[in-house]
């Protein structure tokens, strides 16, 4: 008896292992679909889908790189108790999430997500790649009603004009400056008077020189030229890849000149973004090698940079001493898009989830105004993590809601942090200026290579041509096959 049990156990183990091989051995770090979490394809047509009056029913697999997805999924289940959501998360660092999702979509089979979350760095790769994301253009009436911000739709639209992704937020950027320093070097800390001093790239460099002259070199306009890099991207005339060749837009060459001027005239602090020194600079704690204080006048950050980066790091040190202006060029950084996968087992329900997350007026209002506290979410599902919540203040993707909600943020903590300016006003206006049309799937990698090449140029390790050759070399490794 025992022996036959062992034999059976062995046979089962072997079958499982071989079965996994047959599947291509691709199971990502997802939990097994035990416990009723699986979507049965048969459900799509009849039983699984909607009776919107009584709420939706069915099973949904949601894969994300951010736990904001879990907040949304929980809120969705609050309205539709009949929906079972299997939520999985992986980091986008080093492309783990992207590899995981592309592999699942490429191989197919039973372990495919219905809804995926995508970051700005890779949303275009998914949108432009055939066979990955489903057509959800029919949600456009909702977007029109909410006046969804154009660039968020641009990002989700493929070359044929089919919309495959929507976003619940808009992430335009702005120039965060220090009021005390502005007072010292320009005699005013008023955003209205400062914007003309940084209104375009030439004036920006002139003002940077003025800061250096008056401060005697102890104050620099930015941490490094890379800080301003993202402001150039949406304002190019052409994308990185045209036809089948690498194309360097004139504006990117202008960026090289701009970066070189900042570095070689001693206008930047030579501190990389996200380095410990960069955070020190926000707190007025950056020291050079001789122990002298170096001050940094401004930081280029998007919407999320205010609560999560600047406020989070500097609130105890430089509270109220910040201001925001649009800066020389409109730009955008980050953001999260949602899409239904082509292989989704339950397309209708998945599309409803995307609609709810990105184009549902009540949900977006809740999202922006901090309704989704941990108590709120725990009341729906007691098993949510104790730190899961969504604080108020995120700029939602609906221009209509932005207008409606703006007065609510006049006295928000972040507004007090930036000297009483209402971030919703500045970012709401900036969001309408941004374009996403030139972004391609390989932009993140190519951008990294370009930033490295510009570093090579401005440190004097290579001349302009040498730096561009190094750039082309890097791109030839990561994006082979270009002319």
């Amino acid at each position: 008896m025992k022996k036959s049990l062992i034999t059976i156990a062995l046979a089962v183990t072997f079958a499982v292992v071989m079965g996994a091989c047959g599947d291509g051995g691709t199971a990502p770090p997802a939990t097994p679909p035990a416990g009723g979490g699986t979507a049965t394809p048969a459900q799509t047509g009849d039983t699984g889908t909607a009776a919107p009056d009584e709420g939706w029913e069915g099973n949904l697999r949601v894969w994300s790189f951010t736990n904001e997805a879990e907040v949304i999924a929980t809120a969705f289940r609050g309205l539709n108790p009949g929906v079972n959501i299997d939520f999985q998360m992986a980091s986008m660092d080093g492309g783990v999430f992207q590899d995981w999702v592309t592999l699942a979509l490429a191989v197919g089979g039973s372990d495919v997500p219905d809804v995926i979350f995508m970051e700005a760095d890779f949303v275009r790769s998914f949108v432009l790649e055939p066979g990955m994301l489903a057509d959800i253009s029919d949600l456009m009436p909702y977007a029109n009603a909410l006046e969804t911000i154009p660039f968020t739709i641009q990002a989700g639209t493929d070359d044929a004009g089919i919309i495959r992704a929507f976003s619940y937020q808009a992430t335009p950027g702005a120039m965060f400056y220090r009021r005390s320093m502005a007072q010292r070097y320009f005699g005013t800390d008023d955003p209205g008077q400062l914007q003309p001093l940084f209104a375009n790239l030439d004036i920006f460099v002139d003002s940077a020189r003025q800061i250096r002259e008056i401060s005697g070199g102890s104050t620099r306009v930015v941490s490094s030229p890379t800080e301003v890099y993202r402001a150039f991207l949406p304002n190019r005339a052409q994308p990185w890849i045209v036809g089948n060749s690498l194309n360097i837009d004139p504006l990117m060459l202008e960026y090289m000149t701009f970066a070189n001027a900042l570095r070689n005239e001693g206008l930047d602090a030579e501190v990389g973004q996200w380095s410990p020194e960069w955070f020190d600079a926000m707190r007025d704690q950056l020291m050079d090698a001789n122990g002298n204080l170096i001050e940094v006048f401004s930081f280029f950050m998007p919407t999320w940079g205010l609560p999560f980066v600047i406020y989070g790091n500097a609130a105890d040190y430089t509270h109220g001493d910040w201001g925001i202006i649009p800066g020389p060029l409109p730009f955008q950084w980050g953001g999260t898009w949602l899409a239904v996968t082509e292989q989704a087992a339950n397309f209708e329900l998945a599309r409803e989830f995307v609609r709810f997350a990105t184009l549902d007026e009540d949900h977006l209002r809740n999202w922006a105004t901090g309704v989704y506290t941990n108590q709120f979410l725990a009341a729906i599902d007691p098993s949510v993590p104790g730190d899961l919540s969504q604080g108020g203040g995120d700029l939602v993707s609906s221009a209509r809601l932005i207008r409606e909600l703006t007065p609510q943020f006049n006295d928000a903590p972040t507004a007090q942090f930036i000297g009483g300016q209402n971030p919703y006003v500045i970012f709401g206006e900036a969001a309408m200026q941004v374009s996403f049309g030139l972004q391609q799937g390989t932009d993140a990698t190519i951008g990294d290579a370009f930033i490295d090449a510009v570093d090579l140029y401005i440190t004097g390790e290579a001349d302009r041509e040498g730096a561009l050759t190094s750039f082309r070399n890097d791109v030839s490794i990561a994006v082979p096959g270009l002319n």
Partner: protein
Amino acid sequence: MKKKNSISKDYYGYIFIAPFIIIFITFILFPIFNTLYLSFTDARIRPGSWRGDFVGFDNFTSLLGDHMFHMAVSNTWMLWLFNFIPQMILALVLAAMFASTTYKLKGANIFKAVYYLPNLLMPVTIAALFNTFLSLHGPLNQILVGMLGIMPEARNFGAFALDTRIVVIFLQTWMWFGQTAIVLVAGMTSISPALYESAMIDGANQVKMFFRITLPLLKPVMLFVMVTSLVGGLQMFDIPHLYAGQFGNPDNSVLTVNMFMNLRRSFPSALLGYSGAISVLLFLMSSVVALVLFRIFREPDDAKVKKVRRVNS
């Protein structure tokens, strides 16, 4: 009943080795042959093309003609050689001191543990640590410029190709010399003390004993250290990737073969076939060199002994 029992006794052996065989086939043997297969295809992680079509030697010819791949190969060799040679010398000196019966070093175990410590740190930690330590406004510049005044002005070590290479080589040496020393100590302590005693009676000094007794008898252990270091070194990835970014910049100074492969394999390129070909080339490269090492390090007597035996039998 009796018959059944006698059969099942043979069976038990299979049950005990089954877990290993299954794991070996699934996670080692299958991937190796799958990689070999993939290297001849244009497989890509995308719907419809993840199995790929057979393209013959296209991946290999394109790689062998790619000047960036040549650079990755020469970088990898350069980084390995310049870290292995000092590492071996350092480890040998330390091991000789630890294993010496005459010195009887006090607290040898503490030293061994301390030298081994860098190996226990995660590469992520080490890379982040040194990025901060060597940055323009970082501690090293503060010490050299501010406190000691040795350098006139701060240097951005990460911005220069040569500096970056030196740092990566240093980190590899620093991480692995302790490990190598411990393996060599194990090899040295297995040498019979009688040899040293008789040498001492004959009047040999420490240096002579090291070169005439220790080194020759340490050959098998040295070979082991060399081959494992070679295989690991040619796969070098984490430290240069984390310290100098995915392109090994500035100027691809520390771009290694594995980093090259990572750029081809990962999102958004996702070129499985290409990456398979790179793996196969890497495998061939390390195999050939390992075989050469085996030949060089073969006991010269072995061949003779075999011959003599063959003649006698």
